[in-house]
Every structure is written in C-alpha cells, then in structure tokens.
C-alpha cells in the first residue's frame, strides 16, 4: 500500500517554479484573488529563461503586501524598511556590480514614502530592475488611499471618494530617465513574463508597472466584484500600444488601460559613467571599479 502511494506521488510533475520559491514559507499571506502571486509566477518564469546565474540575483523589497515578495523567493532576498528598497538596492549594486539587483515592491512603498528614491535612481540610471505591483491601494494596512488611487475611488481614508490626482507611473519613470518602461496587468501573464525578461537583460534603470487586483480592500470597497471580475476588467479594457507616449497613459477609475512597452532606449548607466569619467580625469592612475 505504502509503495503504491509513493509511486503515485513520484508521478506528480513538480511545478517548474517551485525551485524559485522558499517552499518552507508557503502558504503565503496574500488573499484569494490577489494579483501579486501571479506576478511572482511571471517573474520566476522570466528568471528561468533569463540565463542569469541565480546565485548572483538579489531581490529587494520594501514594506507592504508586495513587500513580502522578497521573503518567498529563493534568492538572496532583502526585506528592508518602508519606502527604502531602492536606496538599499543602490548600495548593494554599487558595492558589487556583478549582482543583478531587482526591486520588487508596491505602489505606496515605491511612490509615496519612497518616491524621492525612485526619481533619483532613475535619474542616475542605476543598473537595476524595479517592478511595481500597483493595486491602487494600501493593502497591508487596511485599504487606505495611495498616490495611485484613481479619482472617485473609495478608500478607508477617502470614505467619500478620492479627489487627489494620482501618478501616471510610466510617465514619471520616463521623464526621470528610465531606459525601459512597460506596463502590464496581472491578466497579461505572457506579455509580462517577456517584459520582465527584457527588463532583466536591459542595462540601466528598467521599470515595470503591473496593475493587480486587490479584491479584499480595493475591489470590495469600490463594489467591483472579486479578483476574477477585476481580471475580466483588465482583459476587456486593456489596449496594447507599444511605444505609446507615456503622457497619454494615465489611468482613471475603471477606464481603458494602455499597456505595452513604452520606453526602450540606451543611456550609459551610473557605474559606466563613473568609470569613464574617472578614466578621463585620472588616466592610468585609475583602476576601473568592478566592486
């Protein structure tokens, strides 16, 4: 009997992304219908085919629901303070340029408390990939308004509806100098996976915004149904428009969503500029910095 069970278990195929996860930390904390897990799935599949040495990939998160991503990935992973994964990642990357550094965090973490760091990292063109899961809300703390909450949407701290202008994140990233900017939703798993792979291969500051449902705290309060309903909304209202002018991709409450790869350009990254500059300045006295 025991042997039979064993045989059956062996015949079950292993999920290809399992080796990318800290399975001893599962179950995760995310709610049913949450989009973060889907994005992690896409991320691991992008990693799988990226050709990167996984021992040299570090993931850095801030605080919040998406901030927990670092803790579930079987990589060198750093769960830092609220809003500060980008400056932590800056130190990590500059101290060891061999590392592929990915910042994976939420919209509140990266663009409210951490907004200053985002614009400066993009300006410096630090060689890192920033993935922002934008669920339009502060999930972990119970559904407060975020700098990405659409006008009219209700949050626990805007019980009468939001009247603040939200960020257009691709436009922000573009104008600060990011060399790769894309937006997808949790529905666009194939496009997203491909996009993450491209961002990982891109030298310089790459940014991907992923719209993801928060059924517990955003959809429910705004009477938008469950996670599946939000995925249907993404499916029916998204328009793929590669190279779209980022000025024109702002989001409104349940509006049409422009997705795609908006920016893909080349600009020397921070360490390249540093090395070139000092070589010009000091000549042979300068040893190019490699960590």
């Amino acid at each position, binding site marked *: 009997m025991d042997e039979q069970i064993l045989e059956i278990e062996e015949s079950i195929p292993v999920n290809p992304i399992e080796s990318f996860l800290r399975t001893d930390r599962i179950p995760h904390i995310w709610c049913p219908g949450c989009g973060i897990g889907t994005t992690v799935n896409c991320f691991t599949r992008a990693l799988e085919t990226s050709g990167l040495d996984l021992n040299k990939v570090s993931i850095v998160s801030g605080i919040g629901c998406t901030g927990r991503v670092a803790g579930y990935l*079987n*990589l060198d992973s750093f769960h830092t303070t609220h809003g500060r994964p980008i400056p932590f990642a800056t*130190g990590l990357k500059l101290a060891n340029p061999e590392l592929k550094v990915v910042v994976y965090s939420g919209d509140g973490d990266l663009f409210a408390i951490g907004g200053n760091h985002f614009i400066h990292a993009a300006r410096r063109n630090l060689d890192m990939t920033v993935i922002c899961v934008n669920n339009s809300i502060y999930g972990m703390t119970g559904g407060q308004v975020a700098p990405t909450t659409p006008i009219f949407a209700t949050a626990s701290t805007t019980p009468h509806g939001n009247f603040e202008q939200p960020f257009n994140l691709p436009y922000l990233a573009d104008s600060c100098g990011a060399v790769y900017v894309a937006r997808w939703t949790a529905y666009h798993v194939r496009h997203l996976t491909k996009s993450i792979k491209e961002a990982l291969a891109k030298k310089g500051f790459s940014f991907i915004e992923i719209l993801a449902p928060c059924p517990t705290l955003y959809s429910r309060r705004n009477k938008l149904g469950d996670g599946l309903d939000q995925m249907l909304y993404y499916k029916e209202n998204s328009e793929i428009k590669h190279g779209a002018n980022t000025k024109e991709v702002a989001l409104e409450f349940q509006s049409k969503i422009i997705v795609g790869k908006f920016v893909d350009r080349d600009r020397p990254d921070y360490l390249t500029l540093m090395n070139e500059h000092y070589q010009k300045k000091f000549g042979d006295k300068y040893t190019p910095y490699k960590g």
Partner: protein
Amino acid sequence: MKADPKAVLTGAHFLDGDHACSEGAIAAGCRFVAGYPITPSTEVVERIAERFPLIGGVFIQMEDEIASSIAIQGAVWAGKKAMTVTSGPGFSLMMEHIGLAAMTETPCVFVDVQRGGPSTGLPTQPAQGDMMQARWGSHGDYGIIALSPNSPQECFDLTIKAFNLSEQYRVPVLFMMDECVGHMTERVIIPPAEEINIFPRRFYEGPRDEYLPFKPDEDLVPKIVKAGDGYKIHVTGLTHDEKGYPVMTAAAQEKLIPRLVNKIKLNAEKIIEYKEDNIDDAEVVVVTYGITSRVAIPAINQARQEGIKVGHLRLIVVWPFPEKRITELAGRIKSFIVPELNQGQIFYEVERNAYGKAPVYLVPHAGGTVHNPKDIYNAIIKSLKGK
C-alpha cells in the same frame, strides 16, 4: 588583519577632526560611503569623495539621509565596509535605519558631528545633544555602541575602532563627534598600515547546508555571508528566527530581542573604554566626553592647585556606559560633576549608577560654544559644600 598599505597615508599630518575621521575610515577598510551634505559634518564626505576614486572606493551623495543610511547597509550585504556621515537633523532622519542595522545585525558606522539643536538649531556651532538619541533613538529595544573622540587624532584612531567594534559585534556603531572636534585642526599621526589592526568581517566558513544566518556564536554574535555567495539568505527587519525567516510570535521576539540587547550588555566590559586621571585619591570626579573633556581640564587643574582632590573620568566609549565603574566610585567619593553641552543627558546615566551614594551635579550648557571652565570649577567647589 592589517590595514591596506596602498590606502593609508602614513606620516604626520595637520588635519581637522572631520578629515581625520575620513582617513580613519579609509584605514579601517571602509570602501563605501553614502552621505548627504550637512554642516558641520560635510568635510568628512568631501575628503572621502576626493580620496575614494584612486583607492577603489565608491562614494555616492544620496538624495537624503534616509537613503544614505540604508544604502550603506545594502553595500555591507554585498561585502563592503561602509559608513554614513551626518549631523543632528540628518541623524534624526537616520533613526529608523539604525534600528534596521541593529535588527539585521549589519555592521556599519554612523558618524554624527553634533551641532546645536533641536531642529535646525545652530548648524555651525557645537553641542552634545544627541547622546541619548544615539542610544535610544530608534523604536524598540536593541543594543548599539557609541564612541566620543576629543581630538583630531582620536577622530582617526577611534573611527578605526568604531569599524572594528561594528564588525566584532555586528552592530551599528555611532561615532559621536561634535562641531569643535570636527573643525579643530591639530597634529595627527597616521601609523604605518602594518601597525593598524583591522577586525575582519565574521564570515561563515562551515558547511554550506548547515548555515543559519542568525544563529549566534557563544558571544551572541552570528556569522555573516554576503549576497552573491550562493547562500540565498533572507534578511528582514521583521522579527525572525535563526534562518532569517519572519516569525510573528511572542516566542520569536523573546528569543531574538534580548539577544540583540545582551550581545552588547554581556560583552560590555570588553567594549567599554574610558580614561582616568587622578582618580585614586579623588573626592570629586568630573565625568566628561568629547570636547568637554578638554574644557574641563583647566577647571580640574585649578581646583587641584588649591588642594581639592579632583579626578577626571573621560568616556571614550559612551555606550555601553561604564555602569560598574561609576557605582564603585560613588561608594568612595563625595561628588560627581558632569559638564555637557546639553541640558542633561549623560548626567542622568551617572546619577542612575551612583545609586544615591554620591550626589551628581550637572553643569549644563545649551551649546553654541563650549563651557567656561570657571563654571565647571564653581560646580566642583559648590559640590563640596553640598550645594
């Protein structure tokens, strides 16, 4: 382990305390500095920015002190020795990341060249108003080490010590300078590299699959690895187990937090450093640190010339505090005098450890300049009259 001879400027120099601190950091092996301009600390990073390109270091001027104080921690986890440098307002912004460094046991150095506060205060003038903030400024319980130099020479020597202690105990070490010491220019002797002892990072060297990132050694300090070495470590500011995984229970908190406090508390006697003069026969002991230790000397000398038995205890390591020594002295002296450039901070620590056996007199000063030695002298005289 010894310092890197290619980077050490061996010889006699005429340096201010800020520049001496930069040279101390370089001698200690620091090769990553992140900072944000703030008076009176900026000269430290200016010299670093000048020196680093040709010795393989990276300096980055970050967008603020919050960013600086966590960028250094990223650099440490990638294998560098790192520090940040600031003054009062910036130090206030860094508090959360002192807590992060304590929680994640990230060895790093925070330099605070103290100026008058609170708020913007007196940007170009001295104070010693951040001493309690250094100890208690981040939320929650943790241990740290803080040093207080009183000369450019000590800014060099003790910055090396600050790095060494941070590596030995895996804590943030706070280097508490003040504007006077930072801007005072004196002779600084930088010894040959082979005479500079460096405490190497406590890297794990055991079997790979047995590594537990937060399992402490006997001295309560765990071994470290760095990103990119294949250990796939997880480092979090959440309460965590020995594996580094978050555990949201009272039991996990009870296992972790007392250790973070005790690794300093139980090793305190090894860490503590102070200098005593004329203590053996003393009836009055003046307890000082930083610039105030030099201002007190004329007052002490005058009193001794008049036959008053005054001793001097100068704190070099301020945190952990030499509790036992203060208690011992309290049992046999008549009074303590504590002059400091604040309205009473280390004074309370002396008073607490005197256990009422000897009265403790504060000589406060709001900062902006240093004490008039006369005020310290008067306090010595008054203390003997029991006033």
